[in-house]
């Protein structure tokens, strides 16, 4: 079933738990589109042939057509509202507008700039070092060198490591202009706006490499503002954290 749908409606291979519900809605709504378009197309071609101009045949009003049309309109309205209330609003409430809470969640801070993603891990102690604009000239995230919490933090540029099957929250902000943090394989995308912190979260469920694509025009280097996500096993992830703690690239 999935592979057939994949052929009809090509999308990136899915690599997150939450994306499945989104794909279901995508298939349903394109199913509705297809049915409506094919229905209208069949009707359209039929009338163009049936009611072409012919000698001695006058145009006339056909009231029954109105009734059929009205019921089609009501059906469409009903289906749209169904997709809205049964899928889209709940999906948004659960996956986009709220953030999961609990211990078993990884939080990563991202500070975007023209044209790179600065990634900030809290390190083994789980506490982020203090950052301030005063230190932006010294390091791209503005980490305060005197804050002990920051000693074991890991910062990278464009490289993100994630453990598989563990929810991850990204706290996103920007230093300069608006960017957008889009990961097609995870079915997430979120604008990254200077002066604001926005969030995005998902649970990666397949080991592999994925790409982050800046999705909001941010200047001449927008097209190459690319991040890499490495989804690895929990053991590999723990090892990566240990090896890289305190390293600021």
């Amino acid at each position, binding site marked *: 079933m999935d592979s057939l749908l994949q052929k009809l409606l090509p999308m990136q291979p899915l690599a997150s738990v939450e994306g499945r519900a989104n794909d279901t809605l995508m298939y349903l709504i394109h199913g509705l589109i297809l049915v409506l378009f094919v229905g209208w197309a069949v009707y359209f071609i039929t009338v163009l042939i049936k009611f072409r101009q012919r000698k001695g045949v006058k145009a006339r009003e056909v009231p029954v057509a109105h009734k059929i049309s009205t019921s089609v309109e009501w059906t469409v309205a009903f289906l749209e509202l169904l997709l*809205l209330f049964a899928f889209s609003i709940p999906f*948004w409430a659960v996956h986009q507008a709220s953030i999961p809470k609990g211990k078993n969640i990884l939080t990563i801070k991202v500070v975007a700039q023209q044209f790179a993603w600065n990634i900030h891990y809290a390190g083994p102690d789980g506490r982020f070092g203090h950052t301030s604009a005063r230190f932006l000239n010294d390091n791209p995230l503005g980490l305060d060198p005197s804050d002990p919490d920051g000693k074991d933090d890991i910062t990278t540029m464009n490289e993100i490591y994630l453990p598989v099957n563990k929810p991850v929250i990204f706290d996103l902000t920007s230093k300069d202009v608006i960017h957008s943090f*889009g990961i097609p394989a995870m079915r997430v995308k979120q604008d990254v706006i200077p002066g604001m912190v926005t969030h995005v979260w998902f649970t990666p469920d397949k080991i592999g490499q994925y790409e982050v694509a800046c999705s909001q025009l941010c200047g001449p280097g927008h097209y190459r503002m690319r991040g890499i996500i490495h989804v690895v096993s929990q053991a590999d992830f723990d090892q990566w954290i240990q090896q890289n703690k305190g390293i600021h690239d």
Partner: protein
Amino acid sequence: MGGSPNSASHHESFIRKYIFSTDHKVIAIQYLFLSLFFLLFGFLLMLLMRWQLAYPGQPVPFNFIGKLFGQNSMPGGVMLPEFYNQLGAMHGTIMVFLGVVPLGFAVFGNYLIPLQIGARDMAFPRLNMFSYWSFFAGGMLMLSSFFWPGGPASNGWTSYAPLSDIAHDGQTIWLFSMFIIIVSSLLSSLNFIVTIFNLRAPGMTFERLPFFIWAQLVTSFLLLLAFPPLEGAAFLQLCDRLLGTSFFLPSGLFVNGQVYNVSGGGNALLWQHLFWFLGHPEVYVLILPALGIVTEIIANNTRKNISGFNMMRVSVIFLGFLSFVVWSHHMYLTGMGTDITAFFQLTTMIISIPSIIIVSALFITLWGGSIRFTTPMIFALAFLPMFGIGGLTGLPLGLAATDIPLHDTYYVIGHFHYVVAPGVILGLFAGIYYWFPKATGRKMNDLLGHLHFWPTLITMNFVFFPMLIQGLMGVNRRLYDGGETYLFMHKVLYWNVVISWAAWVLALAQLPFIFNFFYSMFKGEKVHSDNPWESTTLEWATPTPPPHGNFTKQLTVYRDPYSYSLEGAPKDYSPQYQEEI
């Protein structure tokens, strides 16, 4: 076109008659030439961009193009990223604000509103002339930005802050130019509204107004109420850029390796709200005139009343109101909460209903008709399914959940181009073919019309349908290299070549139109009647072409606009202006 000798009912100098004219028809034709020029110009910009998308980093095959734009834009014929962004911003701005909107609203509105309601001219003819000349000035200013140091604006047609706030000088020109164009639109819309309310011929009640007039009336109100916020926003952005304010600049910006020296405290999202408060009604400003034109042509060529005409009028008014409360569906990914997105998703789903009712009414009108496949009619008919694809692909974008993967991808580009290009632009072509005989006394050639229509329809689908596929696969818009940087996009990048070639063939397909347009103006088959399509509305009651002052005598209106094939009538059309059926 306006230059037939019998239009001189009184003596005017050449300049008063053709340049600084107050005659709504001459002004319409001035708008026509200018907006068609801008449409072609905006299209050519995209043809150049399509080279870079299909063959990233390769020099364009014609040396003179590289030389024309110079070392700072296309060294060695290879487009630079900044220049790509400039072309993109100018393509969008020119097509929307200087091409399609003036063609649909100003050209057809100016030409037809007084004629279809039975008026001698617009309510404010001098203001009308001023509208045209301020449009001309704004348009020329926009074009001039290609010659400024640093080149034109490069921040998309949406000019999102802070990128636009901190951009080079081309953005300042963009803002001044938009400011002037908006003044022009506001004056036109005011003029149209007053004209429709006050200058209708005796008997032309609101119930008897053709749908085209309803569409123009709603469009005018949209422009009048939605443009001022963008005018204000443009002014605020000018202050940010020129006077050091920070309406759209938050505190603590750090640009290009240094602290950005402004007071801060502004809000980057404020621009988006102000922009889309215009931006969404603007979509209906693009659509409604074409919908009006298509309705006139379908009624005339099915020889039938429009089915559900009353529902269509109610729908278009409802649509007008609703278009003011859907703007944030362009901003779902700015960090909105559930309640706000639920509201804008609901209004977006609701606004699809009147659109579906209007399109359904046109589909139902075909049932039982006696369909003549004239050249304007084939364009009008093609509008329906093409606009249909555009509307339907709006649904997954209107639902916030499915918008997440599709936002800012080629799916969006495919969606709105289906609405505007094979939709609206085909509708506008239909209008040109349909009213050409009234404006010139000559018909456009049908064979050339078909040579224009079929390749245009086919290539447009090869341009825009693959974009939907690319978008589903996550290919983002506004990428200088067409997506080469990203491995996950590679599977669908071969479409870039297909799309580009289709676009270039689409350009060739416009040659029959351009030739037909000028050839038929002077050499086309003459029409022998003032009403060659055997239509019912008032514009066909004028002499051909209509003189200054339009009508030879005061008309009275006796019946509904689409009185075709009435029971007991000797002919299959009963004009509004004739007492006997």
